[in-house]
């Protein structure tokens, strides 16, 4: 059961690689097209500017869990590297708590904003004129992705701190 959950969460966050890759490519194309359209045809798109910032937002918020999955968030490992397995796990527990605080902020308060925007039916007027709640939904979604990854990391770390054993082996 637990294994299945872990696998699913890993899979979801792993798939953000594709989302991120597509978004980065799309972003470059949109901005490039705008440069060309403005210079040669003097008619940049109305939505290009706004769309590019939103794509940047997607690539940023949605990949937090992916980066965490691969343990690639920058850290100072001067002492960390020398800690025993259990102390490392303890640091991971602290990390997990910090992340979950951030996740609560993004999911709860970001989510509240999305709902509020949805109910008021606000539409963006900055160029990419879609419903504002869609734009803001990258906050709770990104928070959720990060939170799921952090939660399974936290469970694994707590287990390791308490028992000194690994609940499951990490695969890369």
């Amino acid at each position, binding site marked *: 059961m637990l294994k299945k959950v872990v696998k699913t969460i890993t899979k979801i966050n792993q798939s953000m690689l594709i989302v991120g890759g597509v978004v980065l490519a799309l972003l470059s194309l949109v901005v490039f097209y705008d440069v060309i359209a403005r210079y040669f045809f003097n008619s940049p798109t109305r939505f290009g500017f706004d769309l590019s910032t939103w794509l940047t937002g997607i690539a940023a918020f949605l*990949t937090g869990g992916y980066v965490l999955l691969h343990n690639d968030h920058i850290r100072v490992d001067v*002492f960390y590297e020398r800690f025993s397995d259990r102390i490392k796990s303890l640091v991971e527990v602290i990390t997990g708590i910090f992340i979950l605080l951030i996740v609560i902020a993004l999911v709860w308060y970001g989510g509240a904003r999305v709902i509020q925007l949805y109910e008021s039916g606000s539409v963006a007027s900055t160029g990419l004129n879609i419903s504002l709640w869609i734009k803001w939904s990258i906050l709770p979604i990104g928070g959720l992705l990060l939170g799921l990854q952090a939660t399974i990391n936290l469970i694994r770390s707590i287990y390791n701190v308490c028992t000194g054993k690994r609940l499951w082996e990490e695969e890369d």
Partner: protein
Amino acid sequence: MASGLLALLIFGSLLLFLLLGVPVAFAMGGISLIIGFFFWSGEASIVGFVLGSYGRVLEFTLTALPMYILMAGILRYSDLADDLYEAIYRWFGGIKGGLAAGTTLIGALFGAMVGIATVATATLGVTARPSMLKRGYDSRLVSGVILAGGALGILIPPSILMIIYAMEASVSAGRLFFAGLIPGLLAAIIFMGYAIIISYIKPEMGPALPKESRFSWKEKFQSLKGVILPLLVIIMVLASIFTGLATPTEAAAVGVIGSFICAGIKRKLTWSNIKKMVVMSVKLNGMVFWLLIGAVAYARIVSATGVGTWVANLITDFDVNRWVILIGMQVIFFILGMFIDPGAILLMTAPVFMPMVIDLGFDPIWYGVLFILNACMAYLTPPFGISLFVLKGVAPDIKMQELYRSVIPFVILYAIVIIIVMIFPQLVHWLPDRIMG
């Protein structure tokens, strides 16, 4: 709560958790949420964090980051260094230390294509290093030029770190780009000079190619073919900014398209290569942006609680010469640089340092170039300069000890460049003033 105590709490807790090894982004974000909730404005501070992170990430200037990162990812796996090195080999092989000097030149060329420090280091570690070792070059000199030349990536425009600095300091990224060009070239020339001079003094460190294996003029000119593609990418990016075709942000998109075409011509767009490019870009991008999200929160706490001003006043109240404070900042950067990623250093110190720099009447562009130069050093300085590990990663046979020693002369040379730029601010201002008025 008294400002002093709060300052201790804010800076002390960050330092503690960083040293424990909690990722920088989450330490900054988590601490800020806790302190903001209890010592500032409760729930409102959390809402502030959420709105602030959305606003920051979706700033237009920052759309340049993912694109320059993608561009770096594409070029990293396009094997451009092969051809460049071949050209260097044919042209400079006959000079003592020529290959080492040429490697620095390639580092500078890469610097003009990518905005991060590790791409040139990794690619040169794979291509230039084995070749130079085979020709009897001193292994420490080889590592040194690769590391020092690679770090130019963040000094010679475009530069990702410069974009982040420009945002923190509210200066124009384009102006900062051009401000870094002359100091970057100066650094490259100094490194090249060092490699050649040291090889003339101690010929065993960088022997010239024997006469019989040197190349004819025809062969030399033929090798220049390999320089065309990289130059094309550089010209596309820089010229699009120069001519006003694109803003520095938009130029990133031009660069992505250019490097993509370049990779296509080099037949590097296989599925496995594309996957490597995407993995590197998405990871680096996620890393940088979450660092920014954490930093937004931290900066708010430092300024909103008044702690930033308090510390700044504390330091300026000492009534020492402003140059002492400036040099003190450089020393702090240097020390932090031995342990922490330059991007994180920038974001951690900016809430306190930036207002001080302005207060003391220093020019933020010039100060930015000084910071970037310091960041170049941070990539090299033991024990945890990132470039050291990148080079070790692609050339596992090097001993860490040897790497540590190899960077010493180049760290000193970087420090000399910093001093030169401090004394002659015209080096920074001349070019952007000419171009942008």
